[in-house]
């Protein structure tokens, strides 16, 4: 017959049991790691990862996923094991919200994502309501970190930061090449990101003493299948340069249409938007992808962590190109793992408190240490000028990090220099 404890009646503790318990307790306390610490080590942080892996932003979402997938083993090697729970936002804000709720219900300790500003806003609302920390890998709409949220942290530049850094670099480009255009046309995708960029350009351009005038701003449908009308309008302005704020497929459509309509401005340079340095951009446009510029945050090739990431990427994804979506997605998980290590708990409040104290000096992207201000924004992110040279996004500015000299004005579409 076994001695089963009876419900509601305390079980008497024998002297032997008490002594055994004390011995275990003392050993545990004397150990350099507490019982809580051991439990944490056994249970890796559960990161709910949200990306648009299908739908309109699938290409970018899958690039983000590559960054997350590389992060798992790299963080484990660094003594910070994490468990990834992937969810597809299907390029829809509604799906992003539902996916975030589902991940939290399934036990995610922290959320990471989600590339598109509109989707990220929906996820941030869920995170705030449920009290679960959310680290934004990529999303530039400034309002996300202006809501007074306590659990939302962004390791990406806001639209105004991108534009301010971008315009600063564009001015440097003109100085470096001795060529100054007089007019520009700004074309932006008409979604949350594009509108944020447009708002930033409108607000910052007059204050930044730009040498050129923005003669026309053209907004286009995010799901546009054809940009012929938009480019015809832009061409009719006879602007010297085109400043696009696009995503990916639209950047391809834009350049393709410029070639067809024989519009040859002095340059195409985004003040801080993606699309022009993607693998698909090079693959589809071939020689017409050359000399296009993007002023965006980028990986610092001189850092050890970047080298490790690049080597892991080349091994795992030999057919793909490592770009900023990979870098920022990797860093988002690094931030989460670092906070968990310091918090010593998966408790959301303790994780959020640890995130506020983040100070990561060893990371992959260009800029200062990863630190968040009161709004949860990393203000140390910097941009670089990338120019497509020999089918590769090449850093041409700032001069200190440059891999090549900038080419401006760009050669015409049928110029022999384009190979």
């Amino acid at each position: 017959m076994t001695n089963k404890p009876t419900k509601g009646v305390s079980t008497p503790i024998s002297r032997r049991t008490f002594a055994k318990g004390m011995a275990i307790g003392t050993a545990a306390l004397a150990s350099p790691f507490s019982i809580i610490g051991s439990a944490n080590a056994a249970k890796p942080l559960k990161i709910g990862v949200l990306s648009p892996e299908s739908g309109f932003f699938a290409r970018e979402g899958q690039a983000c996923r590559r960054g997350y997938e590389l992060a798992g083993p790299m963080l484990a090697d660094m003594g910070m094991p994490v468990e990834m729970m992937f969810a597809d936002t299907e390029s829809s804000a509604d799906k992003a919200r539902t996916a975030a709720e589902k991940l939290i219900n399934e036990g995610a300790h922290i959320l990471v994502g989600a590339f598109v500003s509109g989707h990220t806003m929906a996820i941030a609302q869920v995170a705030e309501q449920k009290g679960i920390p959310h680290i934004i890998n990529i999303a530039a709409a400034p309002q996300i970190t202006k809501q007074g949220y306590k659990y939302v942290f962004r390791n990406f530049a806001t639209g105004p930061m991108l534009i301010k850094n971008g315009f600063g670099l564009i001015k440097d480009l003109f100085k470096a090449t001795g060529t100054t255009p007089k007019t520009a046309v700004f074309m932006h995708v008409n979604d949350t990101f594009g509108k944020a960029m447009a708002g930033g350009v409108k607000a910052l351009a007059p204050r930044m003493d730009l040498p050129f005038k923005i003669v026309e701003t053209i907004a286009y449908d995010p799901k546009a299948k054809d940009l012929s009308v938009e480019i015809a309008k832009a061409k009719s302005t006879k602007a010297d340069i085109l400043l696009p704020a696009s995503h990916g497929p639209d950047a391809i459509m834009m350049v393709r249409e410029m070639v067809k309509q024989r519009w040859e401005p002095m340059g195409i340079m985004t003040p801080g938007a993606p699309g022009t340095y993607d693998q698909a951009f090079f693959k589809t446009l071939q020689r017409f992808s050359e000399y296009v510029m993007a002023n965006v945050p980028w990986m610092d090739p001189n850092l050890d962590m970047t080298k490790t990431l690049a080597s892991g990427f080349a091994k795992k994804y030999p057919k793909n190109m490592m770009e900023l979506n990979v870098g920022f997605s990797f860093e988002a998980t690094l931030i989460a793992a670092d906070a968990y290590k310091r918090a010593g708990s998966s408790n959301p409040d303790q994780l959020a408190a640890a995130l506020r104290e983040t100070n990561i000096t060893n990371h992959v992207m260009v800029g200062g240490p990863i630190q968040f201000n009161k709004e949860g924004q990393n203000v140390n992110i910097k941009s670089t000028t990338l120019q497509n040279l020999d089918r590769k996004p090449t850093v041409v500015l700032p001069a200190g990090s440059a891999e090549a000299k900038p080419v401006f004005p760009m050669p015409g579409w049928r110029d022999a220099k384009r190979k």
Partner: protein
Amino acid sequence: MTWDTIANIMIGGVLTGLVYALMALGLSVIFGVIKVVNFAHGEMMALAMYAAFVIFSTYGLDPLLATPIIAGGLFLIGYIMQRALVAPFVTRPEHEQFILLLAVAILLVNGLLLIFGPDAQSVMVEYGFDSFEVGPLILDKVKVYAAAASIAVALSLLLFFKYTRTGKAIRACSDNLRGAQVVGLNIKNLYALTFGLGAACVGAAGCLLSMLVDITPMLAPELTLLAFIIVIIGGLGSLSGALLGGVLIGASEALAGLLITPSMKSLFSFGLLILVLAIRPQGLLGKRSS
């Protein structure tokens, strides 16, 4: 803005509209005869676009030359689909037809997603970046070729219906089904032929459109919606109405982009749809139902 710019934009819109018109023509043919609305129309078009992409990337065959092959393939698919799937539903309530074809649409989109993934694919023919210069006008070479091919296919279809015995028999089914049965026409076969012809139209349109836009499975529902807008504006069941509707949508979207803002192009199409429904519910060239 100069007149050259306006003319360039308008011509571009009309050329794209002609390809849209071919797609809508298929929908109109099927509804005009069988009285079944093909809710998988855009999805069948996406299938054709992927077929063009596969043929181009594997054999390097220009989609213009691949058009008869793909249209033929889609004809077969349409024929079999009608005989095996749609035929039992022809006499059933409309909502059952809707569910059936919606299921087909979902299967097609997800099948394409499974095989090709979500990434956009493009068919870049050698002349994909070229244009014709006609005085002050710069005409997109691909659009010109696609529009010309579209006109050729549409014209062949109209001639088929007007001058061939089978075409006349199909029209007879559409005009008076009971009469057609009485004179001994093989209705089942004619219905399947009609569905096949509609599918062939969409196959040809998909093949041509693959040169103009990037291909993703998610494009399919948008194309279905676009086909509906066009045929409703032109008149459901009217072949010439579908052609007119396509050109109108292409031109009006271009005009909206020019006069208002490019991001309002779709709004303009829907505005036109509402206007037509309010003023002439049967569509511009449609017959008023008795």
